[in-house]
């Protein structure tokens, strides 16, 4: 083994920044991103599976993905009811009427309290950038677990079942949480994007 072992310091130098950005895009927390990069490289050193010829970045990213999921699972376990109080009482086969969603609708639920507006879609590089900046801002304002779930789900790297298992929630709960995340995010985007125009 000895001399054949790839040098983890090279990995850190060549791929450290990329791994950090990859983690940051998903965890939205610089300290946690640093930690998972460290865990990834430590796991990589101890792994016997790396073939020097395969693309190191791809291989390291694969390990990193697992570390990110592990971290989310741990967090879900530590704070299982963060911002979700009511959800835990829901059964799995009937969809509950979401408490806390009243602000979005008229008293009888029939109509929107604030009508969804037509968004002038971002036009050109600069506006696109501004729109994404507002999106990022709005994501940061969501409860962390909702933001993570929404991001993971909508970048569609993981299917629903797997995300739910990893975050220790039922599929029904995930639908409720995603609905909330989208409602909150949409409202935030509408206010800030239209206000910006």
């Amino acid at each position: 083994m000895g001399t054949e072992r790839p040098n983890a310091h090279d990995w850190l130098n060549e791929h450290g920044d990329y791994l950090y950005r990859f983690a940051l895009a998903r965890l939205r927390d610089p300290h946690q991103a640093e930690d998972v990069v460290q865990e990834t490289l430590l796991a990589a050193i101890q792994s016997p599976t790396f073939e020097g010829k395969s693309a190191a970045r791809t291989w390291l990213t694969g390990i990193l993905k697992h570390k990110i999921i592990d971290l989310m699972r741990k967090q879900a376990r530590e704070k299982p009811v963060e911002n979700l109080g009511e959800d835990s009482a829901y059964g799995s086969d009937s969809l509950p009427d979401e408490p806390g969603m009243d602000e979005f609708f008229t008293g009888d639920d029939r109509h929107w309290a604030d009508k969804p507006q037509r968004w002038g879609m971002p036009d050109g590089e600069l506006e696109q950038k501004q729109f994404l900046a507002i999106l990022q801002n709005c994501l940061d304002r969501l409860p962390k677990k909702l933001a993570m779930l929404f991001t993971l789900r909508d970048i569609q790297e993981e299917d629903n079942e797997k995300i739910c298992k990893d975050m220790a929630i039922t599929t029904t709960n995930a639908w409720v949480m995603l609905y909330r995340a989208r409602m909150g995010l949409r409202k935030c985007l509408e206010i800030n994007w239209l206000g910006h125009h």
Partner: protein
Amino acid sequence: MLSCKQASRLISQSLDRPLSWRERFSLRLHLALCDMCTQFRHHLYTMRIAVRQLTRRIEQDEGLVLPQEARNRIAESIAGKQ
């Protein structure tokens, strides 16, 4: 006829699971008559595309680098293991 609240919930879920025949039917009926929920659906699609773009952008942002302090810490922990 679905309320807007029910319709918005189904629209959100249609991004996460296949809707039943009955759900699709009642949603289509609602959307045919409701501009607001149609707008809402459009917004959700836009958000889905945007969050992917945001992820790619962060991944490719060369200005975002592992802070030196963290880099040193990681280098040290690696040295301890090798």
